[in-house]
Every structure is written in structure tokens, then in C-alpha cells.
């Protein structure tokens, strides 16, 4: 399993995402925003950070990077794509995931561990979890308030596309319906605000609750695994 991690100008957690993929048992492959192909990887991660300084709007400039055409094609083909934090914002801006991320309702950058439940365990990024949680994972973002119009939210719920949720009463940023992460219709594209790559090593402050995400991704999967329920 080769997991590609894209470095955009201003990506910060690319290094951590590569390390997490490796720790999960995959081979980490660095990809560059200016490239036009994905070097034949089996999965793609858009890491956290501040691509283009988050100037203008989070993810707004990065979604136009040359490599994004390849990401779109890969996603359309059913390839697993994960967006973490800034990567999630990029995927929303690119229209690969529904909704948008607004400024945190508290208007401050929030950096702390949160608990999330894994609401759907049949995506390439959640099949490694053996129960819904709650699982602990660091969150660090200023614009993590998930927003979509009510009809979209209803559809997401109806189609089981809310993949991660903050615990009721512990919503750190005002996200609609406590949503921490969502998937596309096919389930192969997943985005979330918390940082699973910082939760893969029990010796570190972030713990290892999310090692399961990377281990699950790296595990051998049937060629045409069905992603829908």
C-alpha cells in the first residue's frame, strides 16, 4: 500500500502524515503540489497546515494547484482520498466534499484534544476502528466550524455520510450537528477537522487512538471493496 501525501506551499503536517502512514504499515510517498500526477499511489492524503497562508480563504488557493486535477480524477475513480484539517478545507473548496468550514464560533484558534465518535466504519479510512469510540484526537484550527445548508445536512445524515462527530456538549467550534468529518457519496473521499496523524504514538502527547485509521488503510483490502452500505 503506497500512501501519497501532498505538500502544498504552507502545508505543515505533511511530515506527520507520512510518518503516520508508515507507522500504520503503508509506504509513505511525498507528492508535490506542482506535479500533475500521483506517482501511482493507492491513496492520497491532503495534510493539515496553512496552504498559501490560508490567505483569502482556507483552501481557496490550494484547490487550484496543478496536482488537484489528478486528485479529482483519482477520487472520481474511487481512489481513497483523505483531507485532514486544511486538507478537508481544500476538498470542500474543490467541491469534492459538501459544505464549507467557517471560523470557529468562539472566534479563537482552538488547540486541544477532542473526543469523536466514528459514525461510519466502512470507508477506507475508518475500517480499522473496531468500535465507534469515542476516540481521542488533537484538534487545532481557527476555521473548523462545519457548515452546510439544512437540506445538505439532512441528505448527509440520510446517506450516512457523517463519518466523525464531536461528542454532544463538547463541540469545539460550533460545527453543524456536531459534525467533525464527512465523506462524499461513494465514501472514498473523507475529510475531517481533527488530526489523526498526531494520534498514532502513545509516547507522544496526542496518544495513539487513531493509529487504527492508518493501520486500516494499509491493511489488505479486497480489490473491489464495496464502499456503500
Amino acid at each position, binding site marked *: 500500500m503506497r500512501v501519497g501525501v501532498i505538500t502544498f*506551499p*504552507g502545508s*505543515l*503536517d505533511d*511530515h*506527520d502524515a507520512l*510518518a*503516520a502512514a508508515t507507522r500504520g504499515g503503508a509506504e509513505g510517498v511525498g507528492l508535490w503540489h506542482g506535479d500533475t500526477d500521483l506517482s501511482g499511489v493507492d491513496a492520497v492524503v491532503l495534510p*493539515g*497546515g*496553512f496552504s*498559501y*497562508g*490560508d*490567505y483569502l480563504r482556507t483552501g481557496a488557493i490550494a484547490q487550484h494547484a496543478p496536482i488537484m486535477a489528478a486528485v479529482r480524477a483519482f477520487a472520481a475513480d474511487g481512489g481513497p482520498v483523505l483531507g485532514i484539517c486544511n486538507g478537508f478545507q481544500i476538498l470542500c473548496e474543490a467541491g469534492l466534499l459538501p459544505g464549507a468550514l467557517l471560523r*470557529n*464560533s*468562539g*472566534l*479563537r*484558534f*482552538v*488547540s*486541544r484534544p477532542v473526543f469523536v465518535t466514528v459514525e461510519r466504519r466502512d470507508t477506507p479510512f475508518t475500517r480499522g476502528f473496531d468500535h465507534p469510540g469515542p476516540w481521542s484526537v*488533537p484538534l*487545532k484550527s*481557527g476555521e473548523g466550524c462545519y457548515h452546510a445548508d439544512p437540506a445538505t445536512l439532512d441528505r448527509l445524515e440520510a446517506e450516512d455520510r457523517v463519518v466523525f462527530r464531536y461528542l454532544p456538549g*463538547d*463541540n*469545539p*467550534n*460550533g460545527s453543524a450537528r456536531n459534525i467533525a468529518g464527512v465523506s462524499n457519496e461513494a465514501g472514498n473521499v473523507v475529510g475531517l477537522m481533527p*488530526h489523526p*496523524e*498526531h494520534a498514532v*504514538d502513545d*509516547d*507522544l*502527547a*496526542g496518544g495513539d487512538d487513531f493509529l487504527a485509521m492508518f493501520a486500516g488503510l494499509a491493511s489488505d483490502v479486497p480489490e473491489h471493496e464495496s464502499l456503500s452500505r
Partner: protein
Amino acid sequence: MTQTPVTTFPADETLTDERARELGHELGLRRDEYDQVVEALGRVPTVSELGMYSVMWSEHCSYKSSKVHLRRLEATSPRILAGPGENAGVVDVGDGLAVAFKVESHNHPSFVEPYQGAATGVGGILRDIFTMGARPIAVMDSLRFGDPTVDGLGPRSRAFQRAIVDGVVRGVGGYGNCVGVPNIGGETVFDDRYATNPLVNVLAIGVMPVERLQLATAEQVGDVAILLGSSTGRDGIGGASVLASQEFDEGLEDKRPNVQVGDPFREKSLIECCLELYDRDLLAGIQDMGAAGIACSTAELASAASMGMDVDLDAVHLREPSMASWEILCSESQERMLALAHPDGVDEVLAVAARWDVPASVIGEVVAGDRLRLHRRGELVADLPARSLADEGPTYDRPRERPAWQDGYGIVVAEDLPIPGLADDGDLAGFVAKFLASPSLAAADWVHGQYDSWVRGGTVLGPGQGDAGVVRLPGSARGIACALDGNGRWCELDPAEGTRRVVAEAFRNVACVGATPIASTNCLNFGNPERPEIMWQLATSIEALGEATRTLGIPVTGGNVSLYNESRVGGSDDPRDTHIWPTPVIGVLGVIDDAAMAVGQAFVQEGDVVFLLGDETRPGLAGSALQAYLDLPLGGRLAPVDLDLEARLAVVLGEAARAGLLHSAHDISDGGLVAALADSAVLGDIGVQIVPTERKDPAQLLFSESPSRVLVTTPSDSVRELARLCADAEVPLADVGTVGGTTIDVQGLLTLSLEDVRDAHLRGVPTAVDPSLVTTATGEVVT
């Protein structure tokens, strides 16, 4: 010496002696300093030269008041690869790795524009680190603000103070988060003495393979100077803007703000670009551009190599083409570096820069001799000995005098305080809860909850988790620990003993996590050095700093001096009221062989035994948090710290941590035992029962800040082993209680519910500083 302007300079650069002297004065050059300039040049300076000398010979750049004293800090250690005088200290930490670290202030800019002032403070210290060849892996911030619970007028109003706190914290986070360096700790102190002069000190740490160390001494004639990074603009030249009166354009002054705007995104690219250049061995030297920008970096590179440099200012990428030469030279635009490369490598350097989208231009060349020559529009605008600018500035041994007010402190009765609830048999628990909610003692989660502490995947103990921050080094099991500490009240009371205590505390904090302290850095925040009392404080503090760091084996590897910090208390003009508390802030670096063994502050397990290691509790209310909280006059005597005991204590803590005996460790400092218990209990979400073994005055028992005391917890089956370590090292230990329950209990004195303490502890800071109480410590909306 000649009085006639040299005709080879363009007319708009030429000054008469009289005019130059006048302008020099306005720029802060003393009469004799101006004469020294004329002597170095053998003629009257040009406008550009005058600008350069005035900035380079300022207190900020030349350390002219502190240099003679800083020499006393000199120390050697085989571990030190780069010491004071370099951009940052560098120490060998083993495994072929070296660590660069340094602390720097950005006090004044943070008062003028809190967000940008603090943000560019982070940016500046990071550049010092990666200039040395290191990848920045952590930052820490030490913040001192006015008391936001006191509502005064103007700058002392609550709204104003809150705006400063808000801006500074957002600025530290905004820059650090975006550039991708984790924050691993710091301190946050509120005291009216800093109301109109906040202290914003930022420490940065970087790591590199030993052989990547960049020392700017390798350059040769013909090496090419390349300016990397942002364009040069008119920001940050407020001080030099009197030179604009040379020009016709009126009202230009206010167009030259001395505030700089940071661009962390650009800095991130610049870091990656420079690291790639080092790894590909393309550079002969490099220098960051801080104060005095191009003037400073060219002079320093040339001077360090004992060579000259020819620079073409027309090649500098400018934000505004109309900039005058002196503006280009003195601009403090951020996110810029000056690199030297062999001519054959220039194309490759430019290609690497292009890949990282970092603007780069070739602006000069290293030449034989010692002259720094700067050209603009084809003409020479400055021609001076590089060394005279960088290394031969004036130094002063300014008059010192022990302030008369020191005598007053000695006669204050400090150790016998009327503690509400204790003295009158009333609600002591209620008093303690309020005390713990005072913003300087309360948890700083509201602050560091806005800082990314995880990025780059090495953080073992982040802010608020241990007495020091701990980061695992890339590709290694080894970690480094760092603590940053200051205490202005102690140092005002007694600059020598106060400084020793602060050094001891930072040292002890590193030891508490299980690391071995190996080196130190410092930022000396003091008042106006032209006042003999302040000079006495500074000199006394530096002497104690040198002595304490040598005794503890943590040589000073570098630091920063910030003078002219003044804060008028209650509008008073009395000299004793106008200085900030003398505030040396000390950073201590330690190494821990197995980072995973680092010990945190949190109580871990029901039934663990609580020990007090180190000294017994001594009278320690002089200068204490309690004294401040009760609004009593500062005073009393500081109990002396026993540095030998500190050293032995550190050995025990290190051995105990390596042997896995400790579940938690936390030193007793600000706020005394109650504050330490509250920190550990709240963090671990578990109570504690203390049974005092010492027969002491209850006030001392609960609130004394006497040094060399650490609370540790250990599982009961490790007790014997710990006792043996202590006996071997001759470190006293006392069994003082047990972890468990839902209260913090000090037998016979105090029972606090953990719930109440948590509430007080977490709400203290946001209640005091959050401009809109709609959010809690972590950003949730409370509505």
C-alpha cells in the same frame, strides 16, 4: 579630519558636518558617538552611513550598556558548539545532533501593535534558529501584562489591557501556528508594573545534524551575496525616519511606521528553502535580517570574515521603488535572509529558491579588504569599514548605584501575613479558591489553548503538561526539555538572590520532567540603563546569573537584552515607580535519553504516595504571589537558594525518572504548595490528601515559595527505591500524603473540592482577559 563633504557621493547623500551632527543627535547618536563615526570614516558621514551607524550603534543592536557586564557570563563547555555572539547558542546533544536555542524580546512593538508585535517576535527568533542551520522544532513564550482586574484610565483601562493580551496571544499563535512550529510552554504573568510595557519574550529551539551547523566564517573573495525572502519596504524604519527631513516630501514621517507586519507563510517557505540549501551544501555563509536589515547583515557577514563587501542596492527587490538608500539599508522588513554562495553555485541557489517560491536576488559580492561599499543608481552611497559598524561600536560602563528604595524592602514584615480565613478562623477554603483563580496563578489554558503544540510530531509534554516542555528529536528516542522562567517581584526585591532563584527554578523545572539540564539562555528585561539604580539592578542580576549558571553547569549560550522598559505606576514620575520590575527571563535546556520516560505534572493514580523532595519549607512569603494578591507592599527578604542542593535534587529526579519511579513531578513555586497541588490535581482529575509532616506556620506551609522543593508521586512499590536514590544523593524526602479522592485536602487546615478548584483554575484567566465572555477557555460558546 576633513570637514568638507566628499564630492564622489551624490548630492542627496551629502551632509555638512553641522547638519550631520544635528541629524545624528536626533537619531540618538551622542556627540562623542558622532565624533567616533567621523573618526572611523575620516570624514563626515553620508545620509546612508549616518542611518546605518545610528541603528547599529543603538542600544538594541550594539548592547553598549550591557556588554561590559555580559562578559561576566562567559563560560565554556565542550558541549557548546556556538556560544554568545552567534545568532543562537548551539549545543551538542549526542547522537550526532546539535540543538540551537535562544530567547528574544519583542516588548515595545507588542505594545504599539500587539498582534504584529508578538507575531514578528516569533518570526525573528525563528530566523535566528534556522540561520544556524537548525530546523525549528519548538517555541515557548513568556508573557507579562498589566493586571486586567484593575480598572484604571487610558492604557490602564481593562479594555485596553485586554486588547493587548488578546492581540499578543493571537499574534504568538497566529505566527507560530501558521509557520508550523509547536508551542511547548511558557509563562503568563499579570502585574500592574507591566501595564504600559508588556513583556513578550519568545524562545525558539531547533535541531540539526552537527555537521550542518552554519558558522558565518567560511566566505571567500568572490562569494556572491543573495537576498532571499520578502521584498524590502518602508516598514520598521520609524526610528530612522528623521532622515526623511532631508527630503522635500512633507508629511512623510507618518508613512514610515516602525511596526512590521509578519508573513508566516513566507517564513515557512524560507525555512524549507534554507534547509534545502544547507543540505545541498550550497552556502558559504548566511545571516538573518533583523534590526537594521541589510546594513546589519552585510556588515556582520563581512566583519565576521574580516573581508569587505560590495553591494548594489538597485538589485534589492523593493516594495516601493521610490525608497531612498538609507530606507533600503535600515528597513526591518521581515522574512529576509542574506546568503553567501560560491559563484558556481548561484544558479542552483536561485533554482532552489524558485522551487519554494522564495524571491531571491543577487545583491553583492565579497571583496578583499575591509570596506563595506554600497551603491545606488550607479553611485557610491556608503563606504565604511565593516568592522566599525558591526563590532566597534561604543561601549559604556554606566554608573551604578544601589537604589535607596532597596532599604525599604528589608524592613517590611513579610512572613507574618493576615490571611483571611486563617487568621480569623473563617472560610480559608473560599479564600484559597479565589487565590487560585487569580490570573497569574490560574491555568494558562486560555493562552496555550490557542497554540498548536502537536505539529511536527515530536511533542511529548506540551504546554501545561509538565514543568518543562519535552520534544522527541526526529529519528531518535532522545528528547530535549526546555523551561522558561522569570519572576520580576523576586528580582526587584533582591536582584542577586531573585536571579539565582529564577535560574534555579528553570533548572529544577527541566529536572522535574526527568531531563538533565545542560545549557541556558536568557532575556534581560530591565528599565532605563542611564539611571544608576537600573544599571545596578542589571549588573547585579547579570553577576548572579553568571555565578548560578556556572554552579549549576548550565553555561549561558546566548541571550538578549531589552532596556528602556518603563511603566509609570499610577502616573507617578518618581523614579522608583517608573521602571518595570527587573525581569531576567531564563531558558534552560535539558536532554532526556528516552523521551517516552518524561514525567508530567498530573497526578496519575489513586493510592500513589506523595513525597516532598529537597529542602524543607522555609519562610517564603517575601515577594510572593500571596503578598501580591493581598495587595500588600512588596517587601521582606528572600531565603537564599542552596544551589548545591538544587544540583543534587536534579540528579535524583533524573535517576528516578529513568528508573520509571515517578508518576508525576511538580516544583513548588509561585503560590506555594496549594498552587502546586491544584495544578497536578486538576490536570490529573484526581484529588490528594496531604498530611503535613513539618510543624510549620500554616501560612508558610500553604503559601511559601521557598526554593528547592519538588512534589513527586510514586506508586507504593517504588517508594523504597526512591528513598534509596535520595539517601545516596543526600536529598531529603518527606512522605506527605496520598493521591486520591475528589478533594484537595491538607489535614487540619483545608479541604477544597476538586470541582471548585478546577473551576477557579480554568476560569481565572478567561474571566480576567477575554474581551467577550462569550467563550470559555477552549473556545466553546457558552450561551
